[in-house]
């Protein structure tokens, strides 16, 4: 399990938002949103805040840290 997990896919789907729409709001590429959703990329703190803001939730609802997970 990765050290930083997220609920971006579930939160985005609940808001009927496409990956491209989220990417445009956050200011990243759609490929980066895909990588975040697949836990292949841990975004910077600034981007994580932007994602949470775009999804209308707090940061800890969107991203969780597991100290036992692998980096």
């Amino acid at each position, binding site marked *: 399990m990765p050290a930083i997990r997220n609920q971006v896919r579930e939160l985005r789907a609940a808001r009927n938002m496409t990956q491209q729409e989220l990417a445009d709001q956050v200011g990243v590429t759609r*490929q980066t949103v895909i990588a975040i959703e697949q836990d292949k990329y841990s975004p910077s703190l600034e981007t994580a805040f932007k994602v949470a803001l775009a999804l209308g939730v707090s940061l800890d609802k969107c991203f969780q840290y597991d100290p036992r997970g692998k980096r």
Partner: protein
Amino acid sequence: MSSLSYREKFLYASLAIELAVYLPYFFLHGHNSVSKVAGMIAGIILLQIIAQGTIAALTRNRITDERDRLIELHGYRIGYFTFASLMAFGLAMLWFHAEAGHLNMQNHTMGLHFLNVFFGMLVIADITRTVAQLIAYRRAL
């Protein structure tokens, strides 16, 4: 191609151009000259400009983000390591052959030979950098 970002498309195009230009050069090593090296560098620059212009014209979303920059740095780190390793190996081989008396510095083709070896190291490092970046786009970073 729609699932690829602007940077990825450009990297695939760069790799194709590098292989198309460099491979014939190094496989036709016997016919090389300084003017051919200069022509090849000019050709690479021209093809890269054409490829970048074409991809930019065909891609609506041309933004690059923090992940692109991170992958770029990752590629440069691997490329630099490859180049430094090849340089160390090349210098060791040069020392070995000089000690064994295999090198004839009076030979007029020796300069071109050194140019080719040095240029080959740069090419291998550059291709390694591009491939490392393409792999990083597909794997977790």
